[in-house]
């Protein structure tokens, strides 16, 4: 029995299982002890959950950019975090101007829409130029080449933003209309108005994207190109244009995500895209890279785990200031997914076939 088992699985498998099992035990013990101690009330958990949902929706929007581009070109656009920064950082200056003019106080909805439009435009432009200059000439090169280029482009953009917009951390203006808890339908809800707005706007964007990819002619062409570029060209589809469209679509999502991020966290700087970018990449891998619903699901899941995880799991283990470790949780999750389910939650087994 044992010998047969050992023949099928080598020592590495065994060690991996042990690590996985060990982590599960740690998670279980931590969770149990936290809940048993009763340190947090139910309303606090709810707050954590809702914050996670809001932050997760932002991750999901950014993750869509990674997943769309991967679906078509099988490359990770590591400069996508900077596509996100470009939009929100540029919009910052307009936001400040609008605040000074009192425009935000008087017409906050319009102000928000204008900011989103600006952020989307800039992000789309950055994404499209990136594709044209950095990636298109390398199409057909070995897969490692565009990957390294992407990392280079990422640094290039970060320092360009720093050069143009300055190196300090800038504070986004406040939207007074969004302060406090949500008041709607004659009662107060246990959710901040900003968070509610972030969740609703992201949900709308995701529904739009899903509709676009599934139902429109351009979306179908996108899926056709993702599957077989040569056959798509034989249908009269301009493959280059579809690829540009894809980058633009990802850029638009990142632009909106940028404004939502600014609403939640209030701060911008030239390097702000790095961490959310890499988290969104984690989310895309988590959901199964190349898969649109997967990126959405992965983003929400990561946001919630990151928000609930520290207090739920680490607090019970007696770790002081567990919230500092939220990034560690996110990336532990990435490593675990890559080890135990490389295709992600909804992923198909196509990465090798298509590579």
């Amino acid at each position, binding site marked *: 029995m044992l010998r047969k088992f050992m023949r099928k699985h080598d020592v590495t498998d065994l060690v991996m299982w042990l690590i996985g099992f060990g982590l599960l035990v740690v998670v279980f013990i931590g969770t149990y002890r936290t809940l048993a101690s009763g340190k947090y009330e139910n309303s606090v958990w709810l707050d954590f959950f809702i914050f996670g949902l809001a932050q997760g929706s932002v991750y999901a929007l950014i993750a869509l950019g990674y997943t769309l581009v991967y679906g078509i070109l099988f490359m990770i656009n590591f400069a996508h975090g900077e596509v996100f920064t470009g939009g929100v950082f540029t919009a910052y200056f307009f936001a400040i101007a609008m605040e000074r003019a009192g425009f935000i106080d008087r017409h906050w909805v319009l102000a928000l829409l204008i900011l989103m439009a600006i952020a989307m435009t800039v992000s789309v432009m950055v994404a499209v130029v990136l594709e044209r200059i950095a990636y298109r000439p390398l199409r057909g090169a070995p897969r490692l080449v565009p990957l390294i280029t992407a990392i280079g482009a990422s640094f290039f953009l970060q320092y360009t933003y720093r050069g143009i917009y300055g190196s300090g951390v800038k504070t986004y203006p406040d939207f007074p209309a969004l302060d406090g808890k949500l008041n709607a339908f004659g009662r107060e809800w246990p959710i901040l108005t900003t968070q509610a707005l972030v969740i609703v706007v992201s949900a709308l964007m995701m529904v739009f994207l899903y509709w676009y990819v599934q139902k429109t002619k351009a979306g179908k062409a996108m*899926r056709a190109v993702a599957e077989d570029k040569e056959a798509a060209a034989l249908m009269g589809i301009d493959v280059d244009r579809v690829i540009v469209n894809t980058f633009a679509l990802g850029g638009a999502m990142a632009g909106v995500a940028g404004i939502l991020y600014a609403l939640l966290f209030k701060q911008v700087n030239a390097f702000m895209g790095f961490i959310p970018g890499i988290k969104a990449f984690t989310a895309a891998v988590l959901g199964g890279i190349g898969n649109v619903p997967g990126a959405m699901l992965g983003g929400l899941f990561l946001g919630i785990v990151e928000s609930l995880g520290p207090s739920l799991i680490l607090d019970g283990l007696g770790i002081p200031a567990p919230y500092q470790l939220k990034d560690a949780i996110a990336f532990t999750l990435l490593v675990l997914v890559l080890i135990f389910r490389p295709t992600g939650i909804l992923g198909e087994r196509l990465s090798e076939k298509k590579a």
Partner: protein
Amino acid sequence: MTLLQLDNLHTYYGNIHALKGISITVEQGEIVTLIGANGAGKSTTLKTISGLLYPRQGKVYLEGKDLTKYRAHEIVKMGVIHVPEGRRVFSRLTVMENLEMGAFTRKDKDGIQKDLRRVFELFPRLEERRNQVAGTLSGGEQQMLAMGRALMSQPRILLLDEPSMGLAPVLVDLIFDTIRELNEQGMTILLVEQNALLALDIAHRGYVLETGRIVLEGDAKALKENPQVKEAYLGGS
């Protein structure tokens, strides 16, 4: 009237000289077949016509217009439609979506509807499975879909690459009957086929390719009787 003319085409894969001066003409309303062994350059010829490959030398003319200056998706708009080897349907799109992709360049809604009805008349099986994902179709159905999809592009000339490959004999007959029927309706067809007997049966004229060169050409009937062709491609007898 000459619809398609290939003039001394030379195509390379990297440093490999795949086509060494191919000259072919296809008249309006004809079925012309290219036969030859694996690696003779049949598929390469079709790919060079449809713009998937660029010739290093030589020209492709469609009614006197030089196609080698255009890219693949632009050539489609001129009515040169290539059904590639191995069918290449979009397996994750539904049958309907595949057919819509065939009509990608078209804006005439009525015309598209008319062609869709024609495709469903030709291949009723596709209508039954219109909402099914193409990856779940059988090989024969995928070939029908590949041809139906090509017909949605308003072809003036169809380039068919190995339509019988991997199909059961009954389905091969069905596909070849359809090719003949399309031709009787006036469609010009350039057919690449491993099964030389079958191809020469329905073609008007044929070319025999060997390692990137045309070694024989002529009337399909004459080729079928040619001892060299018999020896090499028709199983000896």
